[in-house]
């Protein structure tokens, strides 16, 4: 008798989901956001189709405001896996020079990410997009299906979701519809870290503590990652040992002070932590139902 561990079960489930998509989709793509969840998802994709490479491209919907380390990681992973990497930047956002400082997180996220994603999917005609969202991240995700349908205008209708029974997924879509598939739905943050540790999954160095220049903005430590960061009068970057629990656009992602330089130390810090990971992410702060609203509008 072999009792599989919870990580083995989660891995097998994710692989099963990915294979189901590849067998039934016309033109699948993997949304790659370069964070730890994307890293695990990509690692699972490599396993699912071994010895073949994953039979779909990676899509990075770029906001031009990611940490520099993230761009380095992205290009490295694309070349290591041999997968095609599509980088999409919303040209309208580019023309208007949309940025988090002048326009705020809401407009920035909507223009670069939500609209950018819709444009990219439409442009290339992808019918299924893998995303690295987890159900434990946020309440509205807990009720989202693994195969989540979007209308032709990329809207999500939470009241009209298909039941998912056993290991059976109904992937048939109506004209114009597309599907977001979340293969790591049932993983928790701890599962992700344990898996990264066990499997030696490569992740962006920003997750590990190092001396970095930061400024304190309303209690959030924001890293001065490049010269585009406008400093307020009298503000000088401090050098602190910090790391990031979650990665996004650098001006919108808070750092935490930390000495954790190894994975076990990161996990230790997380287990002893008292705040959840999305707290460092500013878009959730808007309102209790903000994520649900964003999702209905097509964010992810």
């Amino acid at each position, binding site marked *: 008798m072999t009792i599989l561990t919870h990580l083995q079960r989660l891995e097998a489930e994710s692989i099963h989901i990915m294979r189901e998509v590849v067998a039934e989709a016309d033109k699948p793509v993997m949304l790659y956001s370069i964070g730890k969840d994307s890293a695990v998802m990509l690692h699972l994709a490599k396993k699912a189709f071994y010895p073949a490479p994953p039979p779909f491209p990676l899509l990075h919907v770029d906001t031009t405001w990611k940490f520099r380390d993230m761009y380095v990681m992205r290009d490295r992973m694309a070349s290591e896996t041999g997968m095609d990497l599509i980088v999409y930047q919303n040209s309208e956002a580019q023309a208007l020079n949309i940025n988090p400082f002048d326009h705020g997180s809401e407009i920035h996220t909507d223009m670069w990410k939500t609209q950018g994603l819709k444009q990219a999917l439409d442009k290339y005609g992808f019918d299924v997009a893998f995303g690295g969202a987890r159900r434990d991240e946020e309440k509205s995700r807990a009720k989202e299906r693994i195969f989540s349908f979007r209308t032709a205008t990329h809207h999500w209708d939470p009241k009209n979701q298909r039941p998912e029974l*056993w290991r059976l997924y109904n992937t*048939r879509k109506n004209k114009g519809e597309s599907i977001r598939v979340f293969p790591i739905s049932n993983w928790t943050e701890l599962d992700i870290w344990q898996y990264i540790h066990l499997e030696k999954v490569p992740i962006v160095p920003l997750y590990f503590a190092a001396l970095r220049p930061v400024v304190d903005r309303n209690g959030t430590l924001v890293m001065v990652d490049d010269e585009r960061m406008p400093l307020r009068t009298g503000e000088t970057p401090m050098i602190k040992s910090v790391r990031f629990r979650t990665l996004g656009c650098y001006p919108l992602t808070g750092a935490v002070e930390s000495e954790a330089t190894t994975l076990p130390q990161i996990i230790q810090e997380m287990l002893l932590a008292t705040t959840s990971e999305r707290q460092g992410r500013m878009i959730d702060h808007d309102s209790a139902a903000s994520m649900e609203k964003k999702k209905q509008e097509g964010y992810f």
Partner: protein
Amino acid sequence: MAHISELIAQDIDAYLKQHEVKSLLRFITCGSVDDGKSTLIGRLLHESKMLFEDQIAALEADSKKVGTRGDEIDYALLLDGLAAEREQGITIDVAYRFFSTDRRKFIVADTPGHEQYTRNMITGASTADLAIILIDARKGVLVQTRRHSFLVSLIGVRHIVVAINKMDLVDYSREEFDRIEAEYREFAAKIGLEDITVIPLSGVKGDNIIERSSNTPWYKGPTLMNLLETVEVNEERLQKQPFRFPVQWVNRPNLDFRGFAGTVVGGVVRRGERIRVQPSGRESTVARIVTADGDLEQAVANQSVTLTLADEIDISRGDVISAAAAPAQVADQFEATIVWMGDDPMLRGRSYLLKLGAKTVTATILPLKYKLNVNTLEHIPAEQLTLNEIGVVELELDRRVAFDAYKDNRDTGGFILIDRLTNNTIGAGMLHFALRRADNIHWQAVEVNKEARRKLGGQGSAVVWLTGLSGAGKSTVANLLEKRLYRMGKRTYLLDGDNVRHGLNKDLGFTAADRVENIRRVAEVSKLMVDAGLIVITAFISPFISERRMARDAVETDEFIEVFVDAPLHVAEERDVKGLYKKARRGELKNFTGIDSPYEPPQEPDIHIDTTTTSAEEAVELIVARLNASGLLE
């Protein structure tokens, strides 16, 4: 979110080692509104320290704003995720929650107790090893308790925990507890539930959830958490089943490698073992069990791997690789239990897509044997199933598939039904057994066959299927067409809607179910006549796309010509040759197509005749030209 483990602070590496070997248990919680379900789950998350301070802070703020517990924390708010639900104060869908202890990771399906949401409970229970059934100690065993218990037994959940909740509100009365337990066990025995543990607890106060409560000294059983951590997981049972492996995807990166990717859904497979590919029945030996982490000697149920075989045999997605010594059954007719999840009713004779494992086939509903009253377990004769109803039916597939009885294997015996038009998942089914009928009544292999008859007649045979509203001109076109073919010396037969209803189908009315049956019979008769070598012309309103598809599927692809005799409703109504529209408008005729019953126009008819611009004679020429082009008149 620290589990209370000193190891975390002292020796994180040791802690991680310990947590690498946790197992996984999936369970479902079922209860009626106000049984305290969400509170119980919230409590489990809280007690296992899965909540962060910011989440607790948000929860406290929400509790004050919209909570139902005064100043106390309303754990239910943690779970009611969607904004609309929070306003209504009820959980309306399946939500998945996660927590873990030092021994196990848990995935909880939280499903609503409302009557109309049977489908959600079935969905949540389909992957569960265990069900927690909540009973309010003040109310005892309710109709809903019976229903939830029946549903979890139907879907094959093996371990049942009856949580008699709100014990604090009955002063932890042992008598109350004993009375409810006795009543529950008596009922459970009737529906065949075996492994039952009854626990007295309080979700609000925390009694017997983690720690044994001093309020119930008379209770000697396990606490809820204790049981969840130690109950046997389904895997153990699954590994004792014969090996089953539905092929999901054929992995062919180069000419030297041909692997079959899938998840082991039953038993164990070992390198060198003899296997059988089903339904083809070909056998081979497992050459390699391939994974990205290196080849394995064996793979067990729930593992996703890639198999290569010693022999080159034809295998594609949807085939099942089974233990050669204990293969699955293969059949195309079944008895099954179906839970209906569609807004439109399930109709006898209608065909749906059926997905079983990695295979999608067409299934036609044969007679509905009965539906079940889930409260009383009575068998009720029925013609159709509506949303959230459960029935036992016979099914016929368009090809043979490998399967096991659902009670033996959820993955090779559980299926979903998909509507061909909306693409929605509209039913979940559990196979019982194959009907031997198909095996026993062999199609009589007659020596004079269709080809021979066609040769003798000097013509091909096919169905010209005219569809359209009443008054569109189907009968006129059909009559002219038959006369024309007769003059050409072709053997024909015209099946007309009104005429057939005077004889073959005079027992049928005009309800949706009867209309489906009407067309099914006509399709079958047409098929026999095509076999007899005739050109069959049918003139039926045949309003539903799925029945026309059924008629098309009954014959070979090149033997069916769908002709859409198209007249806009107002034109057909103006013609009103038989005066039927007037009657329908006056309400004297029910279910009249176009008035109070829908007409689904063909999406891609073989011939489209617009009767406002095309005469009946011209229509006949179009059809004859098509018959000629298909070589059917030679």
